[in-house]
C-alpha cells in the first residue's frame, strides 16, 4: 500500500529531470556522429541481437603511417585495456593483439612505425588450416577465433604471415566478458567486434583519433560512399604482403 501511495505521489518530472533525459537521448543519437568526427571514419550501425551479420559490409582499416607517431603506442594500450590481453605469459610467451613495428629502410636509413595486428584477410590462411573451424571469418570480414572449439594446435599461428596470433601460455582469470580468453587457446585482434556490433569503432582507432595522430581510419570497405572507401580509392595505399594474395582488410598509406 505504501508503495502504491509512493507511486501515486511521485512528483511529475521537473525541468531539470527533463533536460537530463533529453541530454541522454541526444547523446545516444548523436554519439556515433561525434565518434565519426573523432576517429575519421564512420560509426558502424548497431546490430540488433539475433540479426545476422551482413556480407554486404566489409569492415576494414586504412592506416596512414605518416600520422603514426614515433614511440606512440596509444592504439596498443587502448586495445589492451579494452580486451584485457596483458596477462597469460611474459616476454616471448606474452600475447600481443596489436604491436608497433619499427621499419627501417636499409638503403636510406629512414625509419617509420606502423601498428600491426590481425589483417582480417579476405582469404585468411588461419581459417584454411584450422582443423576444427575455430578460426573463422564473419560475413562482414572480421576474422575471429571461437574459443569453445579451439583445441590449441597452433597451426593457425604457423600459417599466419603477419604473426598476428598469440597463444595463451598460462592460466588466466582476468578476462573481460566481451573478450573471452583462455589458457591453451589461440587469440588475436577481433577488430573489437563487440564494439562494432554496438555501433562503435574499434578501441585502437578511437584512441588514435582522440588522443594521438588520427592515423587509423575505420569503416566499410564495401560501401563506395564510405569515407574509407573514398580514401582507399583516392590515395595510394598498400596491403602488407600483398604478393600472397590474401586481400587483407587492413591497408596502409605511405608505407
Amino acid at each position: 500500500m505504501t508503495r502504491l501511495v509512493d507511486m501515486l505521489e511521485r512528483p511529475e518530472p521537473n525541468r531539470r529531470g527533463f533536460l537530463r533525459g533529453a541530454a541522454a537521448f541526444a547523446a545516444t543519437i548523436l554519439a556515433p556522429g561525434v565518434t565519426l568526427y573523432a576517429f575519421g571514419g564512420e560509426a558502424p550501425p548497431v546490430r540488433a541481437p539475433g540479426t545476422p551479420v551482413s556480407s554486404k559490409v566489409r569492415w576494414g582499416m586504412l592506416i596512414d603511417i605518416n600520422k603514426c607517431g614515433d614511440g606512440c603506442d596509444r592504439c596498443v594500450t587502448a586495445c589492451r585495456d579494452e580486451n584485457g590481453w596483458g596477462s597469460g605469459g611474459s616476454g616471448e610467451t606474452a600475447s600481443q593483439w596489436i604491436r608497433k613495428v619499427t621499419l627501417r629502410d636499409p638503403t636510406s636509413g629512414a625509419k617509420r612505425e606502423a601498428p600491426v595486428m590481425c589483417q582480417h584477410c579476405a582469404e585468411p590462411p588461419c581459417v584454411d588450416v584450422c582443423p576444427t573451424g575455430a578460426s573463422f571469418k564473419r560475413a562482414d570480414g572480421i576474422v575471429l577465433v571461437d574459443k569453445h572449439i579451439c583445441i590449441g594446435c597452433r597451426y593457425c599461428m604457423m600459417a599466419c604471415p603477419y604473426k598476428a596470433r598469440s597463444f595463451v601460455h598460462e592460466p588466466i582469470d582476468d578476462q573481460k566478458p566481451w573478450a573471452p580468453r583462455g589458457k591453451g587457446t589461440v587469440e588475436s585482434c577481433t577488430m573489437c567486434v563487440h564494439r562494432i556490433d554496438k555501433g562503435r569503432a574499434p578501441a585502437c582507432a578511437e584512441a588514435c583519433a582522440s588522443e594521438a595522430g588520427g592515423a587509423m581510419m575505420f569503416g566499410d570497405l564495401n560501401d563506395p560512399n564510405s569515407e574509407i572507401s573514398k580514401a582507399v580509392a583516392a590515395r595510394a595505399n598498400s596491403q602488407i604482403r600483398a604478393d600472397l594474395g590474401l586481400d587483407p582488410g587492413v591497408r596502409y598509406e605511405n608505407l
Partner: protein
Amino acid sequence: MAKLTFRKLNDHSPLMWGLMAIHAAVLACGVAAALYMEEHGHIVTGMNNEIVWGAPHVFAVFLIVAASGALNVASISSVFNRFAYKPYARLSGVLAVSLLAGGLMVLVLDLGRPERIFVAMTHNNFRSIFAWNIYLYSGFVVIVAAYLFVMMDRVASQSATLGKVVGAFAFVWRLALTTGTGSIFGFLIAREAYDAAVMAPMFIASSFLYGLSFTVLVLFTMCRETRRQLMNAEMLGKFSGLLAIFSLATLYFTLAQHLTKFYQTGHRGVELFLLRDGGVYPLVFWGGQIIVGSLLPLALLWATREGTKTRRGLSAASVLFLIGGLCQLYVIIIGGQAYPLQIFPGREVSSSFFDGQVAHYAPSLPEVLLGVSGVSLAMLLVAVALRLMPFLPRGDEAPLASEGGP
C-alpha cells in the same frame, strides 16, 4: 618352398623385460609431463609465440612419418610380390600402427586443450590438411588392421588377390598419409622455409628410411629375444640396400629443396640461416642429418656389406638413420620457425613482439619427455602385440652369429 610359420612371444628374457621396464618408465614420465603441461600451460615448455611447435612435434612427426614407412616391408611382399619379405609383413603392420599411435599420443597431449580431442573429431574444416590427416591417420589404423586380418586369417590368407588388393589399398593410403604430413609444411605460404611441393615426396622418402630402420632394429631385438635367426645373409643385404637407397633419396630431395630455395633471391636469407649462419640449426643439419645421419651410416653399410660384421653394421646404421631423421625434422620444424617472418620484405624491422629477430628455443624437460614417450609407447605396443598374437616369423633354428643386435 618352406611353409611360413609365425609365433607369439611366450616368455621374455631379462633383456626384454628390462627394455619393457625402461619404456614403461619413460611412458609414465611422458604422461606425467603432459599432465604437468596441462596444469601449468605451455609456459613450462620452451615453446612460445615465435616457436609454436617444438620438441613434441619433432617426435610426433618423426613417429607418424616412420609409421607409414614401417608398412613398406608388407607392401613389398604383397603388392610387389617379393616373397622374401613375407615373413616380416605382419610385424611391419604392427609396427606401423604402433608408431602411429605413439606419434598421435604426443601430438594430442601437446595440444593446448587436449581434452577437446573429441571436438577435433566432431568439428571438421576440410580445407585444413590437419582435418584430412585426422581421417588419414584413423583410416590408416583401420586399413592396416584389415591388412593384418587378411594376412593372418586362415581363409582370407588363402586368397592371393585379396591380399594384393588390400595391400595395394594400404600402400596407396600410406602414400596419401605421408603426403598429408609433408603438406602440413608444404602448404604453409607464410614461412619461407616451407611453402614447397617437394615437402611431400621428401617426407615419403624419409618415411621409407625411418620406417625400415625401426623395422630392422625391432627384428634385431627379436633375434636376441627368440635366439633365432630372423634375417639371413640375403635379407641383411636386401635391407642394407634398401636403407641406402632410401637415404640417398632423402638426400636428393633435401638437396633439391635447398637448391631451389637458394636459387630464389628472396629465399636466400632463410637458406643461409639454415645452412650457415643459424647457429645450432646448420650444426644439426650438417653434423646431425648429413654426416651422422646419412654419410656415416651409408659408409658403414658399404664397409660392412660383406663379412661377419654385416649385422652390427646394419643395426648401427639403422640407429644413425633414426638420429639423422630426428635432426632432419628438428631443422625443418624448429629451424623453419626460428627464422623471422618476412612481414615487410626489404625492411629491417623491430618490435616488442620480436619482429625481425631470430626466435629462441630451448626445449624443456617435460616436452622432451613427452616426445620420447611416444617412441616408448610404440615399442611397448609392439611388445604387447607380439605377446598376444603370432606376428613374428619363426625364423631359422641356426644359432645367432657371435655379434648380436642392438
